[in-house]
C-alpha cells in the first residue's frame, strides 16, 4: 500500500467538474511532482486528499485511511497549502505552540522546527511582519512539527525569491532522502524538474501522464535542438518566420521539435554560422505543453505507477 493513494477521484462543483477519475500513488523516499496549468485541478485534488473538500466520487487516502480518520494527523501528514495564513497578531513561535498543543507535540519540538527552517531569530515577532519567504518557512515548520512521513506541498515556491526557491528545493530533496513521501504541486515546471523523481501531469481535471521523470521526459516526439551563433537574433527571426518555435536563453537558442540535422541545414541555407549545435531531449516544459493541450488522444500512461 502506497503512503498516498488516489483512486478514481472526482470532484464536481455545481456544473464544473474540477477533477475527473484521477488515480495515482506517491511512493516513500521519492518526490512526486504534481503538475498542471493553473485551474487544472491540482489544489482541489490536494484539498480532497486532506479532507478539506468532499470528493464527489472516488477515494484519496493516506496508508489506506482518509485524512480525518488519522489519529494525530500531524504525525502522519504535513501539509503546506497555497493559501497558508497565520493570525497577524500571533508570533511564529506561538502559532507553532498552538499546533504543538493540538497535535500533542513537545515545546522542544517547536524550537527544533524553528531551527530547521532558520526562523529562530524572528520567531517571537508577530506574523504580520513576516516576508513571503518567512511565511513560507513558518508554513513548512508547521508541516514538519509532527515529523510526518508524508509531505504535501501545494505550490510551495510561489512568491519566493531565487534563494528561497533553492532552499525549498534542497529541503524537499532532503525530506525524500530521509525516506518521506513528498507530493509537490506546481505550475512552475522549471523549478520542479530539478527536485522531482516522479511526475503526475493533469489538465482540466484529468490525468495526462504519470511516471518517472525520465519516462515522461522521453517519448516519441522529435527532439529539440540547442544552438549558439554570432547572429543569433537573425537566426531566431528566420526560424520563427519559417514557422518554428524557439526559446531564447541568453546567447543560446532552443529550437523546439526540430532535429539537429534539420537545424544545421536551415542555418546553412540562411548563411548563419553556428558556433554550437546539440540535440536536446524533450524538456519537461515541452512534454508539459504537449500533454496539457487539448487532448487529441487518450491520456498517456508511460509509467507503471498507479
Amino acid at each position: 500500500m502506497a503512503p498516498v493513494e488516489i483512486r478514481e477521484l472526482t470532484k464536481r462543483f455545481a456544473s464544473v467538474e474540477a477533477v475527473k477519475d484521477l488515480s495515482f500513488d506517491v511512493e516513500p523516499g521519492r518526490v512526486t511532482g504534481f503538475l498542471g496549468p493553473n485551474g487544472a485541478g491540482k489544489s482541489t485534488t490536494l484539498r480532497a486528499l486532506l479532507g478539506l473538500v468532499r470528493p464527489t466520487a472516488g477515494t484519496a487516502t493516506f496508508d489506506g485511511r482518509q485524512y480525518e480518520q488519522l489519529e494525530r494527523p500531524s504525525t502522519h501528514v504535513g501539509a503546506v497549502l497555497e493559501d497558508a495564513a497565520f493570525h497577524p497578531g500571533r508570533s511564529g513561535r506561538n502559532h507553532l505552540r498552538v499546533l504543538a498543543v493540538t497535535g500533542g507535540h513537545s515545546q522542544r519540538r517547536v524550537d527544533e522546527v524553528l531551527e530547521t527552517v532558520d526562523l529562530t531569530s524572528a520567531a517571537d515577532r508577530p506574523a504580520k511582519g513576516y516576508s513571503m519567504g518567512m511565511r513560507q518557512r513558518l508554513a513548512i515548520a508547521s508541516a514538519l512539527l509532527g515529523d510526518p512521513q508524508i509531505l504535501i506541498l501545494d505550490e510551495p515556491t510561489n512568491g519566493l525569491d531565487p534563494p528561497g526557491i533553492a532552499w525549498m528545493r534542497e529541503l524537499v530533496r532532503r525530506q525524500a532522502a530521509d525516506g518521506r513521501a513528498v507530493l509537490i504541486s506546481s505550475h512552475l515546471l522549471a523549478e520542479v524538474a530539478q527536485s522531482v523523481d516522479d511526475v503526475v501531469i493533469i489538465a482540466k481535471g484529468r490525468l495526462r501522464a504519470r511516471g518517472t521523470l525520465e519516462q515522461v521526459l522521453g517519448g516519441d516526439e522529435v527532439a529539440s535542438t540547442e544552438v549558439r551563433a554570432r547572429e543569433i537574433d537573425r537566426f531566431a527571426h528566420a526560424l520563427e518566420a519559417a514557422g518554428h518555435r524557439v526559446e531564447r536563453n541568453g546567447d543560446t537558442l532552443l529550437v523546439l521539435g526540430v532535429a539537429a540535422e534539420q537545424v544545421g541545414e536551415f542555418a546553412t541555407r540562411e548563411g548563419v554560422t553556428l558556433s554550437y549545435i546539440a540535440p536536446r531531449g524533450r524538456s519537461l516544459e515541452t512534454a508539459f505543453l504537449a500533454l496539457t493541450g487539448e487532448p487529441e488522444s487518450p491520456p498517456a500512461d508511460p509509467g507503471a505507477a498507479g
Partner: protein
Amino acid sequence: MSALLRAELLKLRTTRTFVALVAAALLLSLLIVVLIVLLSDEFSKQEAREIFTSDFSSLFILVLGIMGLSGEWRHRTITGTFLAAPERMRLLTAKVLAYAAAGALLSLIVTLSIMAVGSLLLSIEDKTTVGISDLADVLWRNLLVAALLGALGVCIGGLLRNQVVAIVGVLVVSFVVEPTLVGLAPDVGKYGPLLNAPNGIIGINAFSDDKPLDEAVAVLVMLGWIGALFALTAQTLRSRDLV
C-alpha cells in the same frame, strides 16, 4: 478533546484581542458603576444590588466568541485549523467550551472589580450597601450569563462568517430588536437570547414591566438557543468545502 480545548485557550492568550476586550469591559463597567453611585440619590437594597449587574463583559464576550470562529475565516487560518483538527464537530465543541470558559473568566475579573470599587464608593457615600451573600448571588449569575453568551457567540460566528455582519447583527438585536420586542410582545420577547433571557438569569427587568423569565427557565432557554445554533453551525461546518 482536552488538547483541542487547551489549544483554543492558548490561541486566546496569544493575541491581544482578549486582553483588549477585558480592559474595555472593565473600564466601561467601572465607569457606569461609579457614575450610578455618585450621581444617584439613596438606593433601595434591590437597586443597590442591580448596580453590580452593570457588567459589560457579557456583550464583550459575545463579540469575542463571534471573533473566535468568524476570525478563522477573516484571517484565512481556518484551513490550518481544520488540518490540525480535521474532526470539525470536536473542533466546534472545543471552541464553544473555550469561549464559555473565557466568558466566565472575563466576567469574574470585571464583576469582582466593580463589586470592590462600587462597595467602597457606597460606603464612602454612606448609601445602602450590598451584603456578601447578595454579591455572591450576583457573581454566579453574571458568570453564567457570560459563559453562555461566549458559547452562543462562537455558534453565531460559525454561521455568519462575515465578522462585521455578525457583530453589527448582534448589536442590533441586543439594543434594538430585543428591547422593542419585549416592550411590544413580552411573552415572546422574554425568550430573546442576547438580552432578555440573560436578564432572566440575572434577575433584572429591563424594558418591560412584565416579570422576566424564571432563572431556571432562562438557563434552559439559553441552552436551547445554543443547542439549536450549535447544530446549525455543526451542519454548516461539516458540509462546507474549503476551496
